[in-house]
């Protein structure tokens, strides 16, 4: 192809001048654009975390007036291994996260497939699914506490309709965690449905036609076409949901306060009680750091997986 050599236009000249002279200046300026946000994050997240790491090596009961932290070494950490409350809390947390996430993804996948069919009134359904996501967690907690009430609660009334006897729910050590998980699923399942449905809708239609021509059954098409293609979206959704499930605090605080007898005492709740109710700052910060390391390891595994997908 023959190239036409043009005389430099005014705009072209400006572009060249800009590339040469102003490039460095703009580079500096763009760093300046970044600076406020990064400084903000340094001061508000990195500094408190480092301070918390320091505090975790001290013993300090802040409720005693004018008390100061006293250096202890790794005592707070070794104490955790023998702390039955902490060990119980780890168990509760992992059980809560694992069960909620499993149910959310199995149900979420089924319902996402369902709502990606051609339905009338899909807008209405979407708005309905938005309600739990946007409800203030504290309101959801207090509201579900009233729904689970053993005498006046709607839940007991509803199971009564199918002939089941009223249950204790939040007051029972064996049912409380299940009830808390139910609330979590109610509030977060729509998130999973929305994300997976968006992923499914973005899949190329042709490939399913090809699968059908090749004689794939509905299940085979799902297992060998839909699922593998959806994997990147599933990984993103999993990362976000797992991280958020570990963070749960408001709902449990308002539903059960971690009770009865520690049955729903997730790590956030235990750290809250230790640090902000009993003011054992050293112990609470040590727990925080163990919790933090757990979560960072898990999320970095997910993030690495995501990066590998992007490279491909």
């Amino acid at each position, binding site marked *: 192809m023959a190239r036409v050599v043009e005389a430099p236009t005014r*705009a072209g000249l400006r572009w060249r001048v800009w590339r040469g002279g102003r490039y460095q200046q703009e580079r500096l300026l763009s760093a300046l654009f970044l600076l406020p946000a990064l400084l903000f994050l340094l001061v508000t997240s990195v500094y408190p*975390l480092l301070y918390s790491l320091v505090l975790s090596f001290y013993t300090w009961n802040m409720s005693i007036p004018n008390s100061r932290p006293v250096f202890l070494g790794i005592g707070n950490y070794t104490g955790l291994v023998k702390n039955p409350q902490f060990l119980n809390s780890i168990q509760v947390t992992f059980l809560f996260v694992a069960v909620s996430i499993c149910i959310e993804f199995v149900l979420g996948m089924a319902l996402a497939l369902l*709502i990606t069919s051609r339905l009338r009134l899909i807008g209405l359904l979407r708005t309905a699914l938005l309600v739990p996501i*946007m409800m203030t967690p504290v309101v959801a907690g207090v509201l579900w*506490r009233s729904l689970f009430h053993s005498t006046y609660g709607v839940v007991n009334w509803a199971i009564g309709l199918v002939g089941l006897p009223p249950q204790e729910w939040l007051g029972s050590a064996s049912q409380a965690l299940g009830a808390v998980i139910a609330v979590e699923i109610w509030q977060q399942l729509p998130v999973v449905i929305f994300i997976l449905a968006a992923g499914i809708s973005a899949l190329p239609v042709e490939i399913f036609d090809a699968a059908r021509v090749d004689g794939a059954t509905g299940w085979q098409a799902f*297992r060998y076409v839909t699922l593998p293609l959806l994997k990147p979206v599933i990984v993103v959704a999993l990362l976000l949901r797992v991280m958020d499930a570990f963070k749960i605090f408001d709902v449990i605080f308002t539903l059960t306060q971690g009770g009865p007898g520690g049955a729903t005492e997730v790590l956030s709740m235990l750290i809250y009680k230790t640090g902000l109710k009993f003011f054992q700052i050293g112990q609470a910060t040590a727990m925080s750091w163990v919790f933090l390391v757990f979560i960072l390891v898990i999320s970095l595994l997910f993030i690495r997986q995501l990066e590998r997908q992007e490279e491909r």
Partner: protein
Amino acid sequence: MAVAVQHPHARPFRLSRPLLYLAAALMAVLAVFPFYWLAMTSIKPGNQVATNPPILIPTQLSLQNYHDVFAVEDLPHFLANSLIISLASTALTVFLGSLAAYALAKRYLPYRLRHSILLWVLITRIYPPITTAIPYFVLLRRIGMSDTHQALIVTYVAYGLPFVIWLMLGFFQDMPTEIEEAAVMDGCSLWQRFSLVVIPLALPGLAVTAIFAFVYSWNEFLYASMLTSFNAKTLPVVISGYMSDKFLRWGEMSALGTLMVLPVIVFAAGAQRYLVRGLTFGAVKE
């Protein structure tokens, strides 16, 4: 709307049309019922609030609960706190976050640096709020900032920034580069391009980002309960005070809860177009 696209062969199961609608209806009812219950309870007269069997459709309406909530509880003060703190933190987060996202979307800085900054920003959002809550509490008490609006605003900006940066980055990267190049020709500086060209074009994305940031601040409870006692106390902290099983103040709780949740749902319904993008930090687009 994107979700309405049909994928007939993606499904391992087949449902007849009526069953499909039945399942969809059931899903909608389960999702909405608790909110319906909240709203209905808020307009019931006192003697219909806690009954066995529960009254699903109130036969009498009363605004007594709303009246009680506003009369007794210093509510206007707390409502103002919630509004001031949420609006201020949203404005600040969106401004600082968009600036940073714009700088990261431009390729001035080396790739490795931008990549590590983004990863670090993401990680600051990953750790549970409780893990910074305690050092935060100690530090703020030490510098005497407990129970101030500023303390909560700063906290919410910090929490919202990673979200805004990631989301706006996606919106900026989607923008055709020609428009900005044209602005360069016209001699616009980086700041002029950002404020006069890029931001107006990204306005829909910016609005959605702002809604999400607002909802977060509006709903936040842990830091609000820990850092405030009266001056800067926000609505979620007030609501948590209705937790008691003994006195069953469900009527007032429902009135306040409805007041908190209803505006958020209305706003969020408006943000539906970019909902998934917002929910996934910009990782999945509709």
